[in-house]
């Protein structure tokens, strides 16, 4: 399988702070790759390096076979980027923002018009096309950002925390859009600190902490390594203990043999957050 994103010992330092530390990544063509980690783990810095916004201190990164430093123009032609914040021009309409991106990518006039109409329809924003970005809801802004980034039909789409700050309903609509993009063949590199987002969308998940990739695999594979069933036990009304088991039978047997001071007991499916906490000792999203 072809790797669309490859990094080798990629490192980025800001003074004495190491934001990315010898990061080795391989993202396959056509997959949704989730990059999971707490705030400050190095997710956004990695995206900035891969999207040619930040020069790495050492190591190298290739996108679609092009070096992000020495062949940055070629990289820029094949990537689309949806940043964490609203990076559209708020004084322009959705259509104008899309046209602007199309112009920057040298699309001709008729191609621009056709593509704008297609994409607006794709994300159901046709009726909002001539509204100023500043007047749109958060979800609409995100959809507008996604379609703007798709104007030049990029091979790789970088989504940096695409659903942060959105309500549950809007988040699910965006997930549907991301799935559709994936089905249409776009490789998606998605950073998130929402566990359920990574589980719902990604074929593979890389877990990053303090600039290092600490685990990688399919969500189910990562959970299997830990144990598919979690038992939460409240001991002495103070501290919750977590135990992981391969199946429910093993978990039930464990619970039956618990001492009487273990009060509240919950048996549930384990999730990526459990994986993350066990790997790092921190909760996802915690600073």
């Amino acid at each position, binding site marked *: 399988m072809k790797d669309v994103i490859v990094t080798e010992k990629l490192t980025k330092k800001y003074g004495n702070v190491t934001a990315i530390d010898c990061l080795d990544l391989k993202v396959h063509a056509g997959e949704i790759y989730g990059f999971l980690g707490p705030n400050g783990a190095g997710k956004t810095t990695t995206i900035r390096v891969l999207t*040619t916004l*930040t020069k790495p201190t050492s190591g190298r990164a290739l996108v679609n076979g092009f070096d992000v*430093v020495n062949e940055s123009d070629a990289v820029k*032609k094949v990537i689309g980027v949806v*940043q964490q914040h609203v990076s559209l*021009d708020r004084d*322009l309409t959705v259509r104008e923002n899309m046209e*602007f991106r199309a*112009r920057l990518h*040298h699309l001709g006039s008729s191609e621009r018009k056709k593509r704008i109409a297609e994409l607006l329809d794709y994300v159901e924003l046709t009726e909002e096309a001539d509204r100023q970005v500043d007047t749109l809801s958060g979800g609409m802004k995100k959809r507008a950002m996604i379609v703007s980034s798709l104007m030049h039909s990029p091979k790789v789409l970088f989504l940096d925390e695409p659903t942060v700050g959105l309500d549950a309903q809007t988040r699910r609509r965006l997930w549907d859009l991301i799935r559709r993009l994936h089905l249409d063949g776009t490789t998606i590199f998605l950073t998130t600190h929402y566990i359920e987002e990574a589980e719902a969308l990604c074929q593979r998940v890389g877990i990053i902490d303090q600039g290092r990739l600490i685990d990688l695999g399919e969500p189910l594979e990562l959970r299997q390594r830990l144990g598919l069933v979690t038992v939460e036990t409240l001991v002495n009304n103070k501290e919750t203990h977590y135990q992981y088991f391969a199946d429910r039978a093993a978990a039930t047997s464990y619970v039956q043999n618990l001492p009487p001071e273990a009060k509240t007991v919950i048996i549930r499916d384990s999730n990526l957050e459990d994986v993350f906490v066990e790997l790092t000792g921190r909760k996802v999203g915690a600073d």
Partner: protein
Amino acid sequence: MPTSMVNALSDIYSVLWVDLRFLRRHWLRTLATSLVNPILYLVAFGYGLGSGISFDGYSYLAFVMPGIIALTAMSSSYGGAGLKLHVDRLFYKCFDEYLMSPISLFSLAIGKTLIGVVRGLISTVAILAIGVVISNEMMVTPLFVIVLVTSCFVFSFLGVLVGLWAKSHQDLGTFSTLVILPMTFLSGTFFSLSQLPEAVKAVLYMFPLTHSSQCLRAAALNQPFPWMSFAALLCFGLAFFAGCMWLLKRTSV
């Protein structure tokens, strides 16, 4: 025309296009705000303090008018190019979109400069129209137009440079207070430098507005043209442009 040049021109227009859309949407507000200062200066200095005074054989109004036009070119071009860029870069972060697109840094710098030039020219043409009506001693010669356009480019480059350099609103405010404000009042806009001691003159010649005022005044009043000042103005423009390119190269990969 070579393909690379066609692509560069197309990219420059793409960068300018966004700011033109913004200008089209806010043209009245933009024009009105850029004209308040020069009209106030015109009333206060031209009609207030300067009424009845003559300068180098011209009325004070005729003397001060080219200076006010230079001043308008400076403030509109500098602000027009620099302020939005600064806000887009630091607060809305939409400037990253340019850096992630396959356009050259040269096209980006020129495109961002041109909106300052356009805004500078719109404001100065409006003031110029007022000037021509109220002072029949002023002439709009081809040389005057060349100096005016050059001045707009110079101050627009300065705006882009500062917009790229400033790391906060405070930086922008500090630059305005320490450089733009003294330049406004001390660059021979409202008085003749010939009255000043040589040492002071030498300091004031370090301001591009001094050279812009002198060239515009000479061209408008049909005086001997200060070619050295025009050359200095061009040098300022080149230096500011080089600064823009350096900052862009430093920011991008």
